[in-house]
Protein backbone atom coordinates (compact mmCIF):
# COMPACT_ATOMS: atom_id res chain seq x y z
CA UNK A 1 0.00 0.00 0.00
CA UNK A 2 1.38 3.42 -0.96
CA UNK A 3 2.24 5.67 1.96
CA UNK A 4 -0.10 8.54 2.72
CA UNK A 5 1.06 11.85 1.32
CA UNK A 6 1.45 15.02 3.32
CA UNK A 7 2.34 18.47 2.02
CA UNK A 8 4.08 20.98 4.23
CA UNK A 9 3.91 24.57 2.94
CA UNK A 10 6.30 27.08 4.44
CA UNK A 11 7.74 30.37 3.12
CA UNK A 12 11.37 29.36 3.74
CA UNK A 13 13.33 26.18 4.21
CA UNK A 14 15.15 26.41 7.55
CA UNK A 15 18.91 26.15 7.37
CA UNK A 16 21.62 27.94 5.45
CA UNK A 17 20.84 31.35 6.91
CA UNK A 18 17.08 31.04 7.42
CA UNK A 19 16.64 30.76 11.16
CA UNK A 20 13.00 31.58 11.89
CA UNK A 21 11.54 29.52 14.71
CA UNK A 22 8.37 28.76 12.76
CA UNK A 23 10.35 27.51 9.75
CA UNK A 24 12.50 25.33 12.01
CA UNK A 25 9.41 23.91 13.65
CA UNK A 26 7.64 23.08 10.38
CA UNK A 27 10.76 21.55 8.89
CA UNK A 28 11.42 19.36 11.93
CA UNK A 29 7.80 18.26 12.08
CA UNK A 30 7.95 17.36 8.37
CA UNK A 31 11.17 15.37 8.79
CA UNK A 32 9.62 13.42 11.65
CA UNK A 33 6.46 12.78 9.60
CA UNK A 34 8.68 11.36 6.85
CA UNK A 35 10.41 9.10 9.37
CA UNK A 36 7.00 7.92 10.54
CA UNK A 37 6.36 6.62 7.02
CA UNK A 38 4.42 9.46 5.39
CA UNK A 39 5.47 10.55 1.89
CA UNK A 40 6.26 14.20 2.55
CA UNK A 41 6.42 16.99 -0.01
CA UNK A 42 7.91 20.13 1.51
CA UNK A 43 6.76 23.07 -0.61
CA UNK A 44 8.72 26.23 -0.07
CA UNK A 45 10.18 29.21 -1.92
CA UNK A 46 13.55 30.10 -3.38
CA UNK A 47 13.82 32.99 -0.92
CA UNK A 48 16.01 33.06 2.17
CA UNK A 49 15.65 36.63 3.35
CA UNK A 50 12.33 37.39 5.04
CA UNK A 51 12.67 41.13 4.42
CA UNK A 52 13.42 41.18 0.69
CA UNK A 53 11.97 37.78 -0.34
CA UNK A 54 14.53 37.75 -3.11
CA UNK A 55 14.73 34.49 -5.07
CA UNK A 56 18.25 33.41 -4.16
CA UNK A 57 17.94 29.63 -4.57
CA UNK A 58 17.31 27.89 -7.90
CA UNK A 59 13.79 26.55 -8.50
CA UNK A 60 14.21 22.81 -8.10
CA UNK A 61 12.97 19.62 -6.54
CA UNK A 62 15.46 17.75 -4.37
CA UNK A 63 15.38 14.78 -2.04
CA UNK A 64 16.47 16.15 1.32
CA UNK A 65 16.07 15.00 4.90
CA UNK A 66 13.90 12.09 3.75
CA UNK A 67 11.44 14.38 1.95
CA UNK A 68 10.87 15.80 -1.51
CA UNK A 69 11.67 19.46 -1.09
CA UNK A 70 10.27 21.70 -3.81
CA UNK A 71 11.65 25.22 -4.15
CA UNK A 72 9.32 27.56 -6.04
CA UNK A 73 10.09 31.14 -7.11
CA UNK A 74 8.41 33.97 -5.21
CA UNK A 75 6.01 36.13 -7.25
CA UNK A 76 6.86 39.72 -8.06
CA UNK A 77 5.69 41.97 -5.31
CA UNK A 78 5.09 45.64 -4.63
CA UNK A 79 7.32 46.00 -1.58
CA UNK A 80 6.59 49.73 -0.92
CA UNK A 81 2.84 49.02 -1.02
CA UNK A 82 3.35 46.07 1.36
CA UNK A 83 5.31 48.24 3.80
CA UNK A 84 2.75 51.04 3.59
CA UNK A 85 -0.07 48.66 4.49
CA UNK A 86 2.05 46.92 7.14
CA UNK A 87 2.69 50.26 8.84
CA UNK A 88 -1.00 51.10 8.71
CA UNK A 89 -1.80 47.76 10.40
CA UNK A 90 0.91 48.35 13.00
CA UNK A 91 -0.59 51.73 13.83
CA UNK A 92 -4.01 50.22 14.32
CA UNK A 93 -5.63 51.74 11.22
CA UNK A 94 -8.60 49.73 10.04
CA UNK A 95 -8.05 48.39 6.53
CA UNK A 96 -10.68 47.32 4.06
CA UNK A 97 -10.82 43.65 3.14
CA UNK A 98 -9.38 44.54 -0.25
CA UNK A 99 -6.40 46.32 1.38
CA UNK A 100 -5.80 43.39 3.74
CA UNK A 101 -5.75 41.00 0.77
CA UNK A 102 -3.37 43.34 -1.06
CA UNK A 103 -1.09 43.28 2.00
CA UNK A 104 -1.05 39.47 1.90
CA UNK A 105 -0.51 39.37 -1.85
CA UNK A 106 2.47 41.74 -1.66
CA UNK A 107 4.06 39.88 1.25
CA UNK A 108 5.24 36.54 -0.06
CA UNK A 109 3.31 34.41 -2.56
CA UNK A 110 4.22 31.91 -5.24
CA UNK A 111 2.02 31.23 -8.25
CA UNK A 112 4.01 28.10 -9.25
CA UNK A 113 3.58 26.70 -5.74
CA UNK A 114 -0.16 27.32 -5.92
CA UNK A 115 -0.28 25.60 -9.34
CA UNK A 116 1.50 22.58 -7.85
CA UNK A 117 -1.01 22.48 -5.00
CA UNK A 118 -3.94 22.78 -7.41
CA UNK A 119 -2.65 19.76 -9.34
CA UNK A 120 -1.73 17.59 -6.37
CA UNK A 121 -4.02 18.65 -3.52
CA UNK A 122 -6.41 15.69 -3.95
CA UNK A 123 -3.52 13.27 -3.41
CA UNK A 124 -2.51 14.83 -0.08
CA UNK A 125 -4.16 13.62 3.06
CA UNK A 126 -3.25 16.91 4.69
CA UNK A 127 -1.68 20.22 3.75
CA UNK A 128 0.13 21.54 6.78
CA UNK A 129 1.07 25.20 6.58
CA UNK A 130 2.13 28.20 8.59
CA UNK A 131 2.89 30.68 10.02
CA UNK A 132 -0.47 32.42 9.78
CA UNK A 133 0.66 35.90 8.77
CA UNK A 134 2.40 35.06 5.51
CA UNK A 135 0.51 35.35 2.23
CA UNK A 136 1.97 32.04 1.05
CA UNK A 137 0.44 30.12 3.96
CA UNK A 138 -2.82 32.08 3.77
CA UNK A 139 -3.45 31.46 0.06
CA UNK A 140 -2.40 27.79 0.29
CA UNK A 141 -4.78 27.25 3.21
CA UNK A 142 -7.68 29.12 1.63
CA UNK A 143 -7.28 27.19 -1.64
CA UNK A 144 -7.88 23.84 0.08
CA UNK A 145 -9.22 24.62 3.55
CA UNK A 146 -10.97 21.28 4.06
CA UNK A 147 -7.64 19.43 4.03
CA UNK A 148 -5.48 22.13 5.60
CA UNK A 149 -4.04 22.05 9.08
CA UNK A 150 -2.65 25.42 10.07
CA UNK A 151 0.40 25.70 12.32
CA UNK A 152 -0.34 29.34 13.08
CA UNK A 153 2.49 30.35 15.45
CA UNK A 154 -0.03 32.95 16.58
CA UNK A 155 0.98 36.07 18.50
CA UNK A 156 -1.12 38.77 20.09
CA UNK A 157 -0.33 41.43 17.51
CA UNK A 158 -2.24 43.74 15.14
CA UNK A 159 -2.01 41.26 12.21
CA UNK A 160 -3.96 38.70 14.24
CA UNK A 161 -6.89 41.11 14.35
CA UNK A 162 -7.33 41.43 10.59
CA UNK A 163 -10.58 40.25 9.05
CA UNK A 164 -8.67 37.98 6.65
CA UNK A 165 -7.21 36.12 9.62
CA UNK A 166 -10.66 35.49 11.03
CA UNK A 167 -11.59 34.05 7.62
CA UNK A 168 -8.50 31.85 7.69
CA UNK A 169 -9.09 30.42 11.17
CA UNK A 170 -12.75 29.87 10.39
CA UNK A 171 -11.97 28.05 7.16
CA UNK A 172 -9.22 25.55 7.96
CA UNK A 173 -9.91 21.98 9.04
CA UNK A 174 -7.87 22.45 12.17
CA UNK A 175 -4.96 24.10 13.92
CA UNK A 176 -1.84 22.57 15.41
CA UNK A 177 -0.85 24.95 18.17
CA UNK A 178 2.51 25.03 19.90
CA UNK A 179 1.28 25.77 23.40
CA UNK A 180 -1.93 26.00 25.39
CA UNK A 181 -1.48 29.75 25.76
CA UNK A 182 -1.44 30.08 21.97
CA UNK A 183 -4.63 28.04 21.70
CA UNK A 184 -6.28 30.25 24.34
CA UNK A 185 -5.32 33.31 22.32
CA UNK A 186 -7.03 31.78 19.25
CA UNK A 187 -10.14 31.21 21.36
CA UNK A 188 -10.09 34.86 22.46
CA UNK A 189 -9.50 36.25 18.99
CA UNK A 190 -11.55 33.91 16.80
CA UNK A 191 -13.66 31.86 19.23
CA UNK A 192 -11.68 28.94 17.80
CA UNK A 193 -13.48 25.72 18.74
CA UNK A 194 -11.75 23.06 20.83
CA UNK A 195 -12.74 20.25 18.48
CA UNK A 196 -10.62 21.77 15.70
CA UNK A 197 -7.62 22.52 17.95
CA UNK A 198 -4.70 20.35 19.04
CA UNK A 199 -1.48 21.30 20.82
CA UNK A 200 1.52 19.58 19.25
CA UNK A 201 4.68 21.73 19.30
CA UNK A 202 8.08 20.40 18.39
CA UNK A 203 10.39 17.80 19.89
CA UNK A 204 13.93 18.46 21.01
CA UNK A 205 16.80 16.03 20.81
CA UNK A 206 18.48 15.61 24.19
CA UNK A 207 22.03 16.91 24.56
CA UNK A 208 24.63 17.49 27.21
CA UNK A 209 27.01 20.43 27.16
CA UNK A 210 30.02 21.46 29.21
CA UNK A 211 29.00 24.58 31.21
CA UNK A 212 32.58 25.85 31.35
CA UNK A 213 33.48 25.42 27.67
CA UNK A 214 31.95 28.59 26.22
CA UNK A 215 33.31 30.91 28.91
CA UNK A 216 36.78 29.35 28.60
CA UNK A 217 36.78 29.70 24.81
CA UNK A 218 35.81 33.38 24.96
CA UNK A 219 37.79 34.35 28.05
CA UNK A 220 34.69 35.15 30.10
CA UNK A 221 35.47 35.23 33.80
CA UNK A 222 32.34 37.00 35.08
CA UNK A 223 28.86 35.44 35.09
CA UNK A 224 26.78 36.10 31.99
CA UNK A 225 23.21 36.08 30.79
CA UNK A 226 22.39 34.82 27.32
CA UNK A 227 19.93 35.45 24.53
CA UNK A 228 19.95 33.37 21.33
CA UNK A 229 18.03 34.16 18.18
CA UNK A 230 17.17 37.07 15.92
CA UNK A 231 18.21 40.45 17.28
CA UNK A 232 15.48 42.98 16.54
CA UNK A 233 13.12 45.27 18.46
CA UNK A 234 10.22 42.82 18.06
CA UNK A 235 12.29 40.20 19.86
CA UNK A 236 13.06 42.64 22.67
CA UNK A 237 16.84 42.68 22.29
CA UNK A 238 17.21 46.49 22.70
CA UNK A 239 15.26 46.12 25.95
CA UNK A 240 17.61 43.37 27.13
CA UNK A 241 20.67 45.53 26.39
CA UNK A 242 19.15 48.47 28.27
CA UNK A 243 18.25 46.26 31.23
CA UNK A 244 21.66 44.64 31.53
CA UNK A 245 23.30 48.06 31.27
CA UNK A 246 21.07 49.46 34.03
CA UNK A 247 21.69 46.34 36.14
CA UNK A 248 25.45 46.80 35.88
CA UNK A 249 25.19 50.52 36.70
CA UNK A 250 22.78 50.23 39.62
CA UNK A 251 24.03 47.07 41.31
CA UNK A 252 27.73 47.56 40.44
CA UNK A 253 27.89 43.84 39.69
CA UNK A 254 30.01 42.60 36.85
CA UNK A 255 27.65 40.66 34.64
CA UNK A 256 28.16 40.14 30.93
CA UNK A 257 25.61 39.86 28.17
CA UNK A 258 26.16 37.20 25.51
CA UNK A 259 24.16 37.19 22.29
CA UNK A 260 24.15 34.53 19.61
CA UNK A 261 22.24 34.72 16.34
CA UNK A 262 21.85 37.33 13.64
CA UNK A 263 20.82 40.94 13.30
CA UNK A 264 22.09 44.31 14.48
CA UNK A 265 22.52 45.04 18.18
CA UNK A 266 21.31 48.32 19.64
CA UNK A 267 23.24 48.60 22.89
CA UNK A 268 24.26 51.59 25.01
CA UNK A 269 27.93 52.40 24.19
CA UNK A 270 28.94 51.85 27.82
CA UNK A 271 27.65 48.27 27.65
CA UNK A 272 29.72 47.38 24.56
CA UNK A 273 32.85 46.24 26.47
CA UNK A 274 30.63 43.90 28.49
CA UNK A 275 28.68 42.48 25.57
CA UNK A 276 29.84 39.46 23.63
CA UNK A 277 28.29 39.12 20.20
CA UNK A 278 29.07 35.53 19.26
CA UNK A 279 27.00 35.77 16.04
CA UNK A 280 26.08 32.53 14.30
CA UNK A 281 27.46 29.62 16.29
CA UNK A 282 27.22 25.86 15.89
CA UNK A 283 24.48 24.02 17.77
CA UNK A 284 27.15 22.58 20.06
CA UNK A 285 28.54 26.02 20.90
CA UNK A 286 25.04 27.42 21.43
CA UNK A 287 24.29 24.59 23.87
CA UNK A 288 27.56 25.23 25.71
CA UNK A 289 26.76 28.95 25.92
CA UNK A 290 23.35 28.03 27.34
CA UNK A 291 24.75 25.55 29.85
CA UNK A 292 27.20 28.11 31.25
CA UNK A 293 24.78 31.07 31.51
CA UNK A 294 23.45 32.34 34.82
CA UNK A 295 20.09 32.67 33.08
CA UNK A 296 18.66 32.55 29.59
CA UNK A 297 16.79 35.82 29.12
CA UNK A 298 13.96 35.86 26.59
CA UNK A 299 12.61 39.42 26.43
CA UNK A 300 10.24 38.88 23.50
CA UNK A 301 6.51 39.19 24.10
CA UNK A 302 5.56 37.67 20.72
CA UNK A 303 6.34 33.99 20.96
CA UNK A 304 4.18 31.01 20.16
CA UNK A 305 6.57 28.30 21.35
CA UNK A 306 10.02 29.51 22.47
CA UNK A 307 12.34 26.84 21.08
CA UNK A 308 15.46 28.52 22.46
CA UNK A 309 13.96 28.75 25.94
CA UNK A 310 13.28 25.00 25.91
CA UNK A 311 16.81 24.39 24.65
CA UNK A 312 18.13 26.47 27.56
CA UNK A 313 16.03 24.35 29.95
CA UNK A 314 17.53 21.27 28.35
CA UNK A 315 20.98 22.75 29.00
CA UNK A 316 20.02 23.01 32.68
CA UNK A 317 19.72 26.81 32.73
CA UNK A 318 16.75 28.71 34.17
CA UNK A 319 14.79 31.19 32.09
CA UNK A 320 14.03 34.83 32.73
CA UNK A 321 11.20 35.92 30.45
CA UNK A 322 8.92 38.88 29.87
CA UNK A 323 5.67 38.59 31.81
CA UNK A 324 3.70 39.84 28.80
CA UNK A 325 4.57 36.70 26.84
CA UNK A 326 1.85 34.27 27.80
CA UNK A 327 3.55 31.36 26.06
CA UNK A 328 6.97 31.87 27.67
CA UNK A 329 5.41 32.36 31.09
CA UNK A 330 3.43 29.17 30.55
CA UNK A 331 6.62 27.28 29.68
CA UNK A 332 8.43 28.65 32.75
CA UNK A 333 5.50 27.80 34.96
CA UNK A 334 4.87 24.35 33.52
CA UNK A 335 8.55 23.47 33.79
CA UNK A 336 8.93 25.22 37.18
CA UNK A 337 12.17 26.43 35.67
CA UNK A 338 11.99 30.17 35.12
CA UNK A 339 10.89 33.56 36.42
CA UNK A 340 9.04 36.34 34.62
CA UNK A 341 9.52 40.10 34.90
CA UNK A 342 7.05 42.91 34.26
CA UNK A 343 9.57 45.75 34.14
CA UNK A 344 13.13 46.66 35.03
CA UNK A 345 12.68 46.57 38.82
CA UNK A 346 11.46 42.96 38.55
CA UNK A 347 14.33 42.09 36.24
CA UNK A 348 16.90 43.54 38.64
CA UNK A 349 15.44 41.71 41.62
CA UNK A 350 15.03 38.38 39.84
CA UNK A 351 18.46 38.38 38.22
CA UNK A 352 20.07 39.33 41.54
CA UNK A 353 18.12 36.49 43.16
CA UNK A 354 19.42 33.97 40.63
CA UNK A 355 22.99 35.22 40.97
CA UNK A 356 22.82 35.14 44.77
CA UNK A 357 21.24 31.68 44.97
CA UNK A 358 23.30 29.25 42.88
CA UNK A 359 21.54 26.29 44.50
CA UNK A 360 18.17 27.70 43.43
CA UNK A 361 19.52 28.28 39.94
CA UNK A 362 20.73 24.68 39.74
CA UNK A 363 17.41 23.37 41.02
CA UNK A 364 15.40 25.41 38.52
CA UNK A 365 17.76 24.24 35.79
CA UNK A 366 17.27 20.61 36.75
CA UNK A 367 13.51 21.01 36.74
CA UNK A 368 13.71 22.57 33.27
CA UNK A 369 15.80 19.74 31.86
CA UNK A 370 13.50 17.09 33.34
CA UNK A 371 10.47 18.91 31.92
CA UNK A 372 11.81 19.09 28.37
CA UNK A 373 12.99 15.46 28.42
CA UNK A 374 9.54 14.44 29.61
CA UNK A 375 7.26 16.68 27.52
CA UNK A 376 9.25 17.41 24.38
CA UNK A 377 10.89 14.09 23.56
CA UNK A 378 10.26 13.36 19.88
CA UNK A 379 8.24 10.17 20.50
CA UNK A 380 5.81 12.23 22.63
CA UNK A 381 5.47 14.89 19.92
CA UNK A 382 5.13 12.30 17.14
CA UNK A 383 2.32 10.67 19.07
CA UNK A 384 0.58 14.05 19.47
CA UNK A 385 1.05 14.82 15.77
CA UNK A 386 -0.43 11.51 14.57
CA UNK A 387 -3.32 11.77 17.04
CA UNK A 388 -4.04 15.31 15.84
CA UNK A 389 -3.97 14.20 12.23
CA UNK A 390 -6.33 11.31 12.93
CA UNK A 391 -8.72 13.51 14.90
CA UNK A 392 -8.76 16.53 12.60
CA UNK A 393 -8.39 14.84 9.22
CA UNK A 394 -9.40 11.20 9.48
CA UNK A 395 -8.32 8.96 6.58
CA UNK A 396 -10.84 9.24 3.75
CA UNK A 397 -11.65 6.31 1.54
CA UNK A 398 -10.10 6.89 -1.87
CA UNK A 399 -12.45 7.52 -4.85
CA UNK A 400 -11.47 4.11 -6.26
CA UNK A 401 -12.94 2.46 -3.19
CA UNK A 402 -16.24 4.27 -3.52
CA UNK A 403 -18.99 2.47 -5.38
Amino acid sequence: MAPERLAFVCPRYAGGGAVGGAETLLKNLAIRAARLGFAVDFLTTCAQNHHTWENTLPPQQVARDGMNVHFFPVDERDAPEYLRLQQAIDRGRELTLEEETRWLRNGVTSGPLMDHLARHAPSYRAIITGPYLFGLAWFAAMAHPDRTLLVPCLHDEPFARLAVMRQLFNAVAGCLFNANAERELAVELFAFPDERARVVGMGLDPFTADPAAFAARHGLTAPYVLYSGRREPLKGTPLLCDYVHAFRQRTRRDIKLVLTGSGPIEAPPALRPHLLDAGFVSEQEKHEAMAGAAAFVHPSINESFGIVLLEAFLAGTPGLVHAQSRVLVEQCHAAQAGLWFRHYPDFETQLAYLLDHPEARADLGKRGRDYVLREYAWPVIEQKFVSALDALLPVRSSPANNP
Partner: protein
Amino acid sequence: MTTPILSIGAPGFDVAQLVADLQAAVDRKLADGVYADARVARAEHTNLVNLRGSDDFIGFYLTCLREAVFIDISDYEIHERRRVLGPLLIAFKKVVWNLLKFYTYRLWSQQNQVNGLIVTALEGMEDQTARKLAALEQRVAELEARNPGHGS
Protein backbone atom coordinates in the same frame (compact mmCIF):
# COMPACT_ATOMS: atom_id res chain seq x y z
CA MET B 1 14.96 41.79 49.42
CA THR B 2 12.54 39.71 51.45
CA THR B 3 13.11 35.97 51.63
CA PRO B 4 10.64 34.06 49.48
CA ILE B 5 8.05 32.11 51.42
CA LEU B 6 8.97 28.83 49.74
CA SER B 7 12.45 27.53 49.13
CA ILE B 8 13.25 25.95 45.80
CA GLY B 9 13.42 22.21 46.15
CA ALA B 10 11.00 22.20 49.09
CA PRO B 11 7.85 20.09 48.75
CA GLY B 12 5.01 22.17 47.36
CA PHE B 13 7.34 24.67 45.79
CA ASP B 14 5.72 26.68 43.03
CA VAL B 15 7.70 29.01 40.83
CA ALA B 16 4.63 31.25 40.50
CA GLN B 17 4.72 31.75 44.27
CA LEU B 18 8.40 32.68 44.10
CA VAL B 19 7.68 35.20 41.34
CA ALA B 20 4.76 36.60 43.34
CA ASP B 21 7.00 36.98 46.43
CA LEU B 22 9.73 38.71 44.48
CA GLN B 23 7.21 40.98 42.76
CA ALA B 24 5.60 41.88 46.08
CA ALA B 25 9.05 42.88 47.36
CA VAL B 26 9.56 44.98 44.23
CA ASP B 27 6.17 46.65 44.64
CA ARG B 28 7.05 47.64 48.21
CA LYS B 29 10.36 49.07 47.06
CA LEU B 30 8.62 50.90 44.23
CA ALA B 31 6.31 52.51 46.76
CA ASP B 32 9.35 53.48 48.83
CA GLY B 33 10.95 55.18 45.84
CA VAL B 34 13.87 52.75 45.55
CA TYR B 35 13.57 52.70 41.77
CA ALA B 36 12.90 56.42 41.27
CA ASP B 37 16.07 56.65 39.30
CA ALA B 38 16.79 58.14 35.88
CA ARG B 39 18.70 54.99 34.94
CA VAL B 40 15.59 52.89 35.51
CA ALA B 41 13.48 55.27 33.43
CA ARG B 42 16.05 55.15 30.68
CA ALA B 43 16.18 51.34 30.74
CA GLU B 44 12.40 51.21 30.74
CA HIS B 45 11.76 53.33 27.65
CA THR B 46 11.96 50.26 25.38
CA ASN B 47 9.50 48.45 27.63
CA LEU B 48 6.87 51.20 27.58
CA VAL B 49 5.06 49.70 24.60
CA ASN B 50 4.73 46.39 26.48
CA LEU B 51 3.23 48.10 29.48
CA ARG B 52 0.44 50.03 27.82
CA GLY B 53 -2.06 48.05 29.83
CA SER B 54 -0.47 48.69 33.19
CA ASP B 55 -2.30 51.23 35.32
CA ASP B 56 0.65 51.89 37.61
CA PHE B 57 3.34 52.30 35.06
CA ILE B 58 2.83 55.88 33.90
CA GLY B 59 2.84 57.03 37.51
CA PHE B 60 6.08 55.16 38.15
CA TYR B 61 7.65 56.48 34.97
CA LEU B 62 6.74 60.05 35.88
CA THR B 63 8.35 59.59 39.31
CA CYS B 64 11.59 58.47 37.63
CA LEU B 65 11.39 61.40 35.23
CA ARG B 66 10.88 63.83 38.11
CA GLU B 67 14.05 62.47 39.76
CA ALA B 68 16.02 62.90 36.59
CA VAL B 69 14.71 66.17 35.29
CA PHE B 70 16.71 68.82 37.15
CA ILE B 71 20.32 68.03 36.42
CA ASP B 72 22.83 69.55 38.83
CA ILE B 73 25.82 70.58 36.82
CA SER B 74 27.91 71.02 39.99
CA ASP B 75 27.81 67.33 40.88
CA TYR B 76 29.85 66.43 37.83
CA GLU B 77 32.92 64.65 39.17
CA ILE B 78 36.13 64.72 37.20
CA HIS B 79 38.03 61.42 37.19
CA GLU B 80 41.35 60.49 35.70
CA ARG B 81 42.51 56.88 35.25
CA ARG B 82 46.18 57.70 34.50
CA ARG B 83 48.01 57.44 37.83
CA VAL B 84 51.17 59.43 37.25
CA LEU B 85 49.75 62.55 35.66
CA GLY B 86 46.30 62.07 37.17
CA PRO B 87 46.24 64.83 39.83
CA LEU B 88 47.74 67.31 37.40
CA LEU B 89 45.25 66.45 34.67
CA ILE B 90 42.32 66.70 37.10
CA ALA B 91 43.47 70.14 38.18
CA PHE B 92 43.79 71.19 34.53
CA LYS B 93 40.34 69.88 33.64
CA LYS B 94 38.85 71.68 36.64
CA VAL B 95 40.29 74.94 35.41
CA VAL B 96 38.86 74.35 31.91
CA TRP B 97 35.54 73.38 33.44
CA ASN B 98 35.39 76.55 35.52
CA LEU B 99 36.35 78.71 32.58
CA LEU B 100 33.56 77.21 30.50
CA LYS B 101 30.94 77.46 33.26
CA PHE B 102 29.89 80.90 32.15
CA TYR B 103 28.78 79.43 28.83
CA THR B 104 27.63 75.92 29.85
CA TYR B 105 25.58 77.05 32.87
CA ARG B 106 23.41 79.17 30.63
CA LEU B 107 22.70 76.21 28.34
CA TRP B 108 22.09 73.82 31.23
CA SER B 109 19.72 76.15 32.99
CA GLN B 110 17.71 76.66 29.79
CA GLN B 111 17.58 72.89 29.22
CA ASN B 112 16.50 72.37 32.83
CA GLN B 113 13.69 74.84 32.35
CA VAL B 114 12.47 72.99 29.27
CA ASN B 115 12.74 69.62 31.01
CA GLY B 116 10.83 70.93 34.01
CA LEU B 117 8.06 72.35 31.84
CA ILE B 118 7.69 69.06 29.95
CA VAL B 119 7.42 67.03 33.15
CA THR B 120 4.93 69.48 34.62
CA ALA B 121 2.86 69.31 31.44
CA LEU B 122 2.94 65.51 31.44
CA GLU B 123 1.97 65.34 35.09
CA GLY B 124 -0.84 67.80 34.46
CA MET B 125 -2.12 65.78 31.53
CA GLU B 126 -2.00 62.57 33.50
CA ASP B 127 -3.79 64.14 36.41
CA GLN B 128 -6.41 65.69 34.15
CA THR B 129 -7.00 62.41 32.30
CA ALA B 130 -7.30 60.48 35.55
CA ARG B 131 -9.88 62.98 36.88
CA LYS B 132 -11.87 62.94 33.63
CA LEU B 133 -11.89 59.14 33.61
CA ALA B 134 -12.99 59.00 37.23
CA ALA B 135 -15.85 61.43 36.47
CA LEU B 136 -16.88 59.37 33.43
CA GLU B 137 -16.76 56.12 35.39
CA GLN B 138 -18.92 57.68 38.06
CA ARG B 139 -21.38 58.89 35.45
CA VAL B 140 -21.53 55.44 33.83
CA ALA B 141 -22.14 53.87 37.23
CA GLU B 142 -24.96 56.35 37.92
CA LEU B 143 -26.55 55.69 34.52
CA GLU B 144 -26.29 51.93 35.02
CA ALA B 145 -27.86 52.26 38.45
CA ARG B 146 -30.71 54.28 36.94
CA ASN B 147 -31.28 51.74 34.10
CA PRO B 148 -30.34 48.36 35.56
CA GLY B 149 -31.53 46.47 32.45
CA HIS B 150 -28.97 48.16 30.16
CA GLY B 151 -25.21 47.89 29.86
CA SER B 152 -22.98 44.99 30.71
